[in-house]
């Protein structure tokens, strides 16, 4: 468990997300006005890169592809969001943003099973 320096506070303007890589771990820093969050780079819904699809307004991070959304101050899920947002702990020191990176946080994305041709085409 180590605190790692990610960027300067001034690197991420209010209501934006920016991508950084620290010791081979890629993460996003989100500035929601009331503070910062360090989160994995993909939307837990459909693996959309949140640095492109994510919009922050009124403390909420919304993926504009299908509107999953989280309150960044509480990390509560908003609307029809079905998975929580994972996050690294952050702290500010001397104008830097530090994240507590133990291991890389990743979401599991499942694949559907396949069916053999003859079984599939004979189904009623």
């Amino acid at each position, binding site marked *: 468990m180590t605190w790692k320096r990610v960027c300067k506070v001034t690197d991420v303007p209010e209501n934006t997300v920016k991508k950084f890589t620290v010791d081979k771990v890629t993460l996003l820093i989100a500035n929601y006005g009331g503070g910062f969050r360090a989160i994995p780079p993909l939307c837990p819904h459909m693996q959309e890169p949140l640095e492109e699809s994510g919009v922050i307004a009124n403390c909420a991070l919304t993926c*504009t592809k299908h509107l999953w959304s989280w309150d960044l101050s509480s990390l509560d899920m908003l609307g029809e969001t079905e998975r929580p947002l994972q996050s690294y702990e952050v702290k500010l020191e001397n104008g830097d943003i530090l994240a507590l990176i133990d291991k890389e946080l990743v979401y599991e994305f499942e694949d559907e099973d396949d069916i053999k041709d003859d079984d*599939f085409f004979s*189904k*009623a």
Partner: protein
Amino acid sequence: MPAKNHKQWLADPPLQPGEWVDSRVYSDPRIFEDELKNIFRRTWIPVCHESELPNLYDFRTTSIAREPIIVCRGPDNEVRAFLNVCAHRGMIIERRPSGSFLDGQPSGNPKRMTCMFHAWQYDLKGNCVYISREKEGYQDRLCKENVGLRRLRCEVKFGGFVWVSLNDNPIPLEEWCGKPFECLRKSLEAEPLEVFHYHKAIIPTNYKLWHDTNSEFYHDFMHYHNRVTGFNDAYFGRKNESFEHGHVVVGTFEVNYDKYEGFESRAALSFPYLPPNQWYMIDLFPGMNFNLRGSALRCDVVTPLAPDKVMIEFRGLGLKRDTEEERQTRVNHHNSIWGPFGRNLHEDLLGVTGQGATMLPGSEPRRILHGRRENQTIHDENGMRHYYSEWGKWMNRLPRDPAQPYLAPAAADAAE
């Protein structure tokens, strides 16, 4: 979730009847012919706007259900519509898309419509006023009084649009669509409007697919900018309200144009009586759309050309009294959403062109789902269900199985 084999793919979805249609309603040439006969020849079509005929003797030509039509402003300032067909040998009388009869034509005279073929002439009230060598050819067996243009029902209404019907006895226009226009009537009729934008597009798709797109906002997911800046609770709260005769109105809400990237508030140039930045939309059966976004009005009119081909005419309107600067701002507001480089129009056309590509005449019939229910708000597909319920009545066909006759309203309404 799993992929479907052929038999499964063709099965009915687990929805109520009325919540899907058979794709043949979009692709079958026989159904298309019935639509021209049963619907387009019997209803009212807004063929143009009075500002496109500003002067006495101005005219425009168009067509409804393959019938050529001429609309002109007579010497008494009345706008009239006629079949653009000579009573003699069926020649088209006027070929130009628009112009003026004030000047004489090569084989005719000023202030007359002249058939160039044998120089028969008509006045702007449709009377035949000249038959070349009448006595020599017809003696007294046929004279001018026996022939004339076919005059059509024509009214200037709801903000100066010119409504024409091929039906001599249609449902009165006020009764036909007065109620859906009620929400915008004061705004459109407070003072004269003027067309500042016109273009037409011939799109390889069925005309109803264009109207479907105008009747649901669920395709927001295709509009990148709508997703990014458009969605909010007020937006989702907008209701699709159904009216008699298949019409739908999408209720208004206040758009935060200043939150759109590169946009500005439209409050300063709102149409009369319209609260600032409001957005109303009227979808008329069988395929006209009136879309007022604060400062600019858009009107789409469809002319079905084939099952898989439609001409859409797009008009943009402002107030006739606009200063040059005001007009330019309205044009900018119009084009920023609906112009070729605007936010929405080209994406909407992409959607229906893609549907058209999968529903060619002869394509295997499949189910097209209209089953979203969301308390009749804008991602609900109730507007489309309302439309197809009306379509079934006019066509005497069941939209989900068009080989079957339309069911009594009670049965269809049960599905609603």
